[in-house]
């Protein structure tokens, strides 16, 4: 199963221009808030209409501007989990979960089956039997998500975590061909998040359908996703496996989204050195620098106080400013007089007191070589 998306849509502040392909497994769209991630999901679901492009799900064309195909949302078989979960306030948990299940009186999902004959009529006996089957199925799903005892409760009385479970149960019960998750953890307290991430991981494991997971949180993405595509100012970038992306995001925008605190424009000096004017330093790089490289990135944790054999970059520490976090130190400093600041993070387990050394050391492999997208 696969979802192919290639759409363009003019938005207020920028042009949304997104292209990606999501196969089985969890595909993540990572981007800052307001970059067009949610709009992309809404276009896939048919809630919003792109200006042009094509959306294909398992060979079914959901949208094609050239062929003027634009299926309505209810015929797309796309499951959508909203940021605020959008549970129906007037329905109980059970009714919410059953809201998306196919009902016998609805006939086939695509109406009359295309042969022009009226919808199949169901005998009352059949109807009753299938209603009982639907109820049984819904109750199974409730049990699976540990919300069976909440079945007669209204959403207003649920906690954030329970709401998310109900939304997830509703999504699974719907049996859609693709699941779209829009920032599913953003409405949750951080202590709940961890457990629900685990539950989500188990649910999504081997689900056998594409899952598109939208997030601005790199930790969530790292935990849950297999493949990742960054969106910045509406433009999607190359899709990469998650591990590879966090090792080297490839682009300056991707590096910032991956949580790299130090990103600056750089120009190659020979094949193994990068001049970073903003920081006032030149970095030695072990790999050969390609022509497309125009920026450098250094993770805040990559600096070392102690010089190791492979550390062939020595970086002066000027004007340090120390910020104390519960478990680590965050130190911003300049590498040259009047240069821009860099950020260094070191766990308190490694450095008990904030003793700022006169210089830091950096492995030449730890310099990320980045291009502009």
């Amino acid at each position, binding site marked *: 199963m696969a979802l192919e998306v290639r759409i363009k849509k003019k938005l207020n502040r920028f042009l949304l221009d997104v292209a990606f392909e999501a196969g089985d497994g969890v595909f993540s769209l990572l981007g800052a808030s307001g970059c067009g991630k949610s709009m992309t999901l809404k276009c896939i*679901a048919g809630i919003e209409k792109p200006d042009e492009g094509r959306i294909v799900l398992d060979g079914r064309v959901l949208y094609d501007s050239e062929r003027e195909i634009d299926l309505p949302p209810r015929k797309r078989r796309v499951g959508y989990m909203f940021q605020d979960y959008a549970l*129906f306030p*007037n329905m109980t948990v059970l009714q919410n979960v059953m809201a998306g299940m196919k009902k016998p009186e609805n006939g086939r999902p695509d109406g009359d089956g295309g042969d022009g004959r009226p919808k199949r009529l169901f005998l009352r006996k059949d109807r009753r039997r299938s209603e009982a089957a639907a109820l049984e199925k819904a109750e199974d799903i409730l049990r699976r998500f540990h919300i069976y005892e909440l079945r007669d409760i209204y959403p207003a009385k649920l906690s954030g975590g329970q709401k998310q479970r109900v939304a997830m149960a509703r999504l699974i019960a719907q049996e859609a061909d693709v699941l779209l998750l829009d920032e599913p953890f953003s409405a949750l307290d951080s202590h709940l998040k961890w457990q629900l991430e685990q539950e989500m991981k188990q649910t999504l494991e081997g689900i056998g359908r594409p899952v598109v997971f939208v997030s601005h949180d790199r930790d969530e993405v790292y935990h849950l996703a297999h493949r990742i595509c960054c969106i910045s100012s509406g433009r999607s970038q190359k899709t990469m496996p998650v591990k590879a992306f966090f090792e080297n995001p490839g682009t300056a925008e991707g590096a910032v989204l991956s949580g790299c605190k130090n990103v600056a424009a750089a120009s190659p000096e020979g094949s193994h050195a990068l001049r970073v004017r903003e920081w006032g330093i030149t970095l030695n790089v072990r790999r050969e620098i390609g022509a497309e490289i125009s920026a450098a990135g250094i993770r805040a944790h990559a600096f070392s106080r102690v010089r190791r054999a492979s550390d062939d970059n020595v970086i002066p520490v000027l004007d340090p400013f120390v910020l104390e976090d519960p478990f680590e130190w965050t130190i911003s400093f300049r590498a040259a007089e009047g240069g821009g600041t860099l950020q260094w993070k070191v766990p308190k387990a490694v450095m008990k007191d904030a003793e700022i050394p006169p210089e830091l050391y950096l492995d030449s492999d730890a310099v990320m070589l980045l291009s502009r997208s």
Partner: protein
Amino acid sequence: MDSLTALLQSVDFSPLIISLKTGIAATIISFFLGIFAARKVLRAGRHVRAVIDGILTMPMVLPPTVAGFFLLLTFSLRRPVGSALYEHFGIRVVQTWLGCVLAATIISFPLMYRNARAAFEQIDVNLVYAARTLGMSETAIFWRVILPAAGPGVVSGTILTFARALGEYGATSMLAGNIQGKTGTISQKIAMVMQNGDYAAAGFWVVIVMVIAFIIVVATNLVTSSKMKEAKRF
């Protein structure tokens, strides 16, 4: 005690019956028309919406006698539409109970329409989107998602509509007149007996109207507050 019974027996209760019947009929019509109009107007373009909304709200801001004027202009037996209706279909609006209902409906309709519209506007649009992606039909979405979510607003709109229709005077007296036992509503009764300075009779009907209004408002509060507890919207 006997005198009270005698008094009650001597009173003609037809104004009460006529007012209630008129109020209920007008409310039912306004309920469906108002919701229908609110839904259509919300889906219209911005400019069309502004104009249509203005027209639909007019009866609320204009004096009821203006509505009465237009109703007579249309339905009077001496006017083309009114005479055609009477000749071809035997429908007479002027001086009939139908006139009462029509006048009350026109006057109370904006209350239903505006309240329904305000209630629909406040619905979390994601609920509708979610319903669509869940495969629900537009009709099902309206009855199972939009209307319940707009519930409190629609209920209070209905109540206000009923209260307004129940007390309608201006347009009703012009169109339907005050025929005892036929179009004589409570408000017309009060106006009529007051012309003779009969405070006792007027007071009697005033008390009845106040009791009805109070019961309605309290009952609604009870109904909506129990619903509110479950929806806990605030």
